[in-house]
């Protein structure tokens, strides 16, 4: 049943249902809360323009995830962002230094973006390899490779951090 698509309050329902999912994907890629919020707005504005393309609620979800990934990556490539460090990142890294408490998210944030995205979609959004391949327009083996390499790198980072702590 297409509960959201057929709703009279389509956009409100879509925001209520998926805004956190999009925000988390965007944060995972941009590593910045303000940019993630900008991405949320961008994604829903695009949804308003492309509503006629959405076939059902399941399609809506994958369309939103795919658009969130694209918009987040596009956001990161704006050159004025690439060469500078946002206030928030400075604050967060200072916080980490002060407290010395490195969370799993801090460690994952150190992975290259392409590994972070695949790990997030697989482990947080519980998407299957095939679904991720479709969303990112890469092959299934490409997704598997990124997952394997991402996990391996993550393991190395965690081991490295543990050895520092000791």
């Amino acid at each position, binding site marked *: 049943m297409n509960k959201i698509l057929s709703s009279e309050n389509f*956009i409100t329902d879509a925001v209520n249902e998926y805004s956190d999912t999009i925000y*988390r994907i965007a944060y995972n890629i941009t590593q910045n809360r303000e940019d993630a919020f900008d991405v949320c707005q961008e994604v829903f504005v695009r949804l308003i323009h492309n509503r006629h393309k959405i076939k059902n609620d399941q399609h809506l979800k994958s369309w939103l995830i795919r658009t969130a990934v694209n918009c987040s990556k*596009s956001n*990161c490539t704006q*050159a004025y962002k690439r060469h500078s460090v946002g206030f928030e990142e400075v604050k967060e890294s200072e916080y980490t230094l002060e407290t010395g408490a490195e969370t799993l998210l801090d460690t994952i944030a150190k992975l290259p973006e392409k590994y972070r995205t695949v790990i997030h979609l697989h482990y*947080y959004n519980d998407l299957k390899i095939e679904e991720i391949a479709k969303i990112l327009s890469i092959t299934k083996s490409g997704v598997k490779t990124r997952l394997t390499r991402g996990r391996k790198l993550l393991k190395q980072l965690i081991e490295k951090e543990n050895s520092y702590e000791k």
Partner: protein
Amino acid sequence: MKNEYKTEYDKIALTEAQKNTLIAKMEDAEQFVYEIEKENYNQNKVLLKAVAACFAVAIILGGTYIGSMFSMSNSTYTEETTTPKNSFMITANAASAEKMPEDVVAMFSGVSVYGFLKDDNYFLDYEMSGLTVTGCNIKKFTMTVNDRFCYFGLRDKNNLSEYKTLTNSQYTSKELKSAGVLMACDGFTYTNPLPTDKEQVIDLSDKVDFIIESDRSDYEIVECLTKMREINDEMWKIRAERRKIQGESGFTSEEEHLLENKYDYHLRKFMEKTLRDATITVTVTYTDGTVQKQDFDVDFILQDYDENIIFDPRVDEFNEHTLLNTKGYEWIAFRYAE
């Protein structure tokens, strides 16, 4: 670890206030779009017949073009008695590719690009995601780029700043060095360690980058770079001021959007100008000694967020208005040379 990851990520969520603001903004946007569509409806009805006629012409012309496209007139063999099994093709695909021109064989998204300054030059480094060479009986192949401001970077994917030679490959021509450090080359040869007559896929994904350097002798390019720097500085001043006043969750102002558009415009102009005459040549040597050569044009193509092509150098003139006012995706595309 999965549970820990989920628990930590659950904490990252929009605040109630942010969610309410988002809903209010989207409802306004929806209403705005509805009003515009309603306004355009009557005008569109008048235009419909004219558009239908244009489409008919476009389909006829398109059909003729696609027919000639696959003639591969630029592909040359040094020997005429080539084994039919000998073949090669380069491909690469990435997200948002559905509406690309059909003659594009490989393309690289602007989302995998990063720019950096080195020795007062500006470089754009495109990660050639998904680049593969497929074919049968391939003994080795050479890729060269003719443009003196374009390079290939054969890289160690775990260390973006370090350029290394690819396994089974060697640089064959000019190397780009900066402060004695090898960055890239304008040609390399890859030797296939296990050639076979069955179709093989040589995966170069994430192993080769396409790098564009700024031409400091070109006035227009230098002007683009100067403008980009100025806008960059102005953008950060505004962002810093805004954050002081509105905090982290403030909205991007209209002024910032305008500056972003201006920045993208100069970047697009720089790329289009640099790639205008760029061609890559792929020369394949097969196991029986025959050699096949194929030229590919390197084009800068732009899509809007609905994935419609808004700039293709084979079709469009550089249109300042469109490129200044449209947000979208930048692509580098390889297609058969004209």
